[in-house]
Structures are given as C-alpha cells and as structure tokens.
C-alpha cells in the first residue's frame, strides 16, 4: 500500500519508524504526513461520517505510535497502518457509529460527485444503499478495490485475508450490486 503522493522507500520508512519510536517528533510527523490522507479517505469511505473518520484516523495513528517498536519492516508501514485502520474502523462500525441517516448528506454527496457520473440521482442513492447493504466483508473489499483502487494483495494484507478471498468477496459484491440494480441496466445502456 504505497502512498503515491510522496512514497517513502521501505528503508526510509523503517528509519523513520525507528526514529519515531525513539521519540523523534519530526519523524512521527513525517510518517503521519505520508499516510494520513489515505487512511482518512479509507476511514471515511468505510464509516461515511467525518467525525467517525477522524476518530478512526486518530486512533489508528495513536495505536501505531504506541506500537512502532513492534514494527519490523517485513510489510510496508502503509500496509501495517492500513491493517490497524481497518481493525479500528471495523470496531467503530460494530459499536454502532455507522452512519444511519443517509438522507441528509445525500444532496451534498450528489453535488460533490455530479461532475464525475452519468448516473441518475436515484441511482446514486440506490447504489449507496446497495453498497451499505452488502455483507461487511464484501463491502470493505468492494470499497477498497473498486472505489479506492487498492489491489487484492493490499486488501488481503490490510484485512488479514488471502488475496483469493478478496477476489471472491469482490465477485460476490459485484454480483449482488448487479442484481440489486438490474433495473438500471436499460437506462444506462441508452
């Protein structure tokens, strides 16, 4: 899970992690800056709420900083952070912090994404509801792969599953969405 904006190399990451673990504030901030955007994006995609996404992101980095001395560098720091982030997000969702009222922010979301989609607003809502209704594993894989562009290997590492399982979950998710939104096929085709 390399950060495309400013990708530190594996060696840099290990050094930074070691320095941050030793109490170097600059190194910790550098690690934070390198990964915070992507962690926040994923947290937001999964939770659907800014407050929840902020909590998840903050908890992720706090946990990571507490355990930096356990980071051995076998995986990239990004993979390690994503694993923590997913675990924190899953706990947050389980604890009932998942967004319940989609109606309010829907208008906002439609405005935000209107420029990049041809779909009807009705479809936007139906698609969001269909994604929300996916089983949690399928939803996470779908969001990470099809929405955020993670590879199956990255998803496998972050979710602690095999990449083949990730593929199977994506297959199921897509099939469920196709079935759920079948009525829109005709509209889109035209």
């Amino acid at each position: 899970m390399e950060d495309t904006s400013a990708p530190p190399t594996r060696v840099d990451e290990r050094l930074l992690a070691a320095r941050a673990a030793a109490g170097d504030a600059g190194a910790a901030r550098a690690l934070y800056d390198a990964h915070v955007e992507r962690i926040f994006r994923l947290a937001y995609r999964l939770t659907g709420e800014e407050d929840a996404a902020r909590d998840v992101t903050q908890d992720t980095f706090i946990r990571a900083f507490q355990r930096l001395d356990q980071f051995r560098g076998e995986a990239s720091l990004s993979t390690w952070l994503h694993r923590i982030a997913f675990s924190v997000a899953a706990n947050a969702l389980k604890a009932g912090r998942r967004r319940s009222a989609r109606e309010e922010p829907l208008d906002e979301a439609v405005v935000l994404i209107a420029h990049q989609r041809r779909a009807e607003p009705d479809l936007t809502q139906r698609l969001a509801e269909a994604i929300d209704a996916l089983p949690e594993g399928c939803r996470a894989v779908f969001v990470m792969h099809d929405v955020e562009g993670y590879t199956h290997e990255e998803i496998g590492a972050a979710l602690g599953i095999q990449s083949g399982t990730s593929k199977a979950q994506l297959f199921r998710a897509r099939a469920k969405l196709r079935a759920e939104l079948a009525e829109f096929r005709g509209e889109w085709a035209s």
Partner: protein
Amino acid sequence: MTGRGDHMDDEQFDRLLREAARGYNAPPPAPVEAMWAAIEARRASPTASADAGGSATAPTPHVIGTIGPKTFTRVPRAWRAGAAALAAVLLLSVGIAIGRQWGADAGAVSGGLADGRPRDATVTDAAPAQPAPTDVAVQPAAPAEQATRGGALPPAADVRDRAVAGGERAPAGAGRVRDVASATRGGAEGAASAAPYRVLTAQHLAQAEALLTGFRAEAPGGGGAAADAMWARDLLSTTRLLLDSPAARDPERRRLLEDLELVLAQLVLLPRADSPEERALIDRALRRGDVLTRLRSAGGLQGT
C-alpha cells in the same frame, strides 16, 4: 440475475457501477492539522492513550516532544506477577505441544518418503474425513495413490484407505504439499524434483473436478452444501499452497489454480446462504473461466 440477452453485459455494467460508486461516501479533504493536534493531545494524556490503544500491557507510549508520565499503574503488582506466571506456563505448554507435533510430523515425513514414493496422507490428513461423491475414487491421476496401495502401506495411509473404503474421503491435505516441498528441497533436482508436484497437482485437480461436478449435479438446499464446503475448504488450502509452489510456475496452470481458488472460496461460503442465487453465482464463475473443462484437460494431461 441477468443473462446474456440484457442491455449490456456484466463487464460493462460493472464498469458503470464502479464509476458511479466513486461517489460513495466521497471523503472531504482530510483535516490534517486538526487531527494531528488531537493525536498529540491524546498521546500526552495517559488515560486517553490507554483508551485508544489499548491494552494495559502495552509499552508506555513515547510522547513526542514531551516526557510522558508513568502510566498503567492501575493493575496491582500481585496480579501482574500472577498473570506473568500464567503466561509463562501457557507459553511453555504451547512450546511443548508444538515440539511434539513437530516431532510427529518429521517422523511421518521421513517414514512416508523413505521408499522414494510420495507419501499419500498423514494421520492428520485423514482425520477430518468427509463424504464424497462416489465417482471420486476413480481418479484419472492417482498414480501415487495406487502405488501406495500396491506397496506396503504405512500406518497413515492405512487410515486414509479405511476412510475411503468406509465411504469417506480424506481431504486433499495441505500437509502433502508441505511434504512434497520438503522432499524436493531435500535432494532431487530439475525435472525429477518437479515430478511430485506434478503428481500432487494432478491429484488435486482431479479432486477439485470431482467436487465441482458433484456440486453442479446437486439441488439447492439438498443438504450437500455443508459437505461441499468442508471439502472445498481443504482443497482451497491445498490450492493456495500449490499457488506458492513450483507447481504454479507454468502460467496456464497458475491461471487455472487462481480460477479454482475463486470458485472454491465461494463454495466455502455457500452454507451461509445456500440459495439458487448463490449457486448461480458459483455456476457463473465456473462457466466464465470454463473451469471444469480446463480442470479435466489439465488433470488428464498431468496425470500422464
């Protein structure tokens, strides 16, 4: 579920869905500075750190830029000492158990391979035996199995034979892949070292074919899903081990194993919701990759 006669095919529809899904929970810009400030504040506060992270046994966090106070003093010392003793005993027990298991495995491997034939099954392979379609016993690629039956059977193979004779089937057995790996690592080279993998892959593909053929013949809700899932789980482990082994060096075989992995992973999940729709999904995955045909031809070719 929709078929070929629809307005657009699945790939096109998936693409459009993906495009539309990019707006799903579209994130605003990350409040980088505000979150950093909150992180620093929470890390400076010992109780908050404990809440966020974690466990009472976690090391005292390094507070960036400040010296953190000593934390986690709430657990009485006597309890900590007791917990440490308990942990030590547990660790020792686990160590002994692993040691015994290791010794048993090593003995089984050396015993099974002493006569130069690939070992068919260990006792642990045979333990979680499960039902299988009746046609499974006739495998196009089972030279190792036949050889083992023809020769002096080690006790482990005996167990497997009894399972098969009793209408049960031992799983493909991830252990066998590991055994073959250690055998080939040990001595044989080049083509000779690939032979056990070839045999194992052929057996594995034949078993997968048997499972998938049986699955397609089953009716939904007929009670076969659980047995299929158990069998699929075993085959899935072996498939994954084979994918990481020299057996997957051939690109075509690798693709076949990957497609098989996908189908098996779906089969494993089937008992959770055994419905015609779920079965149709698996059937579609089978048809899309033409998996059964490829399994048949691959099994036939490799078995020779």
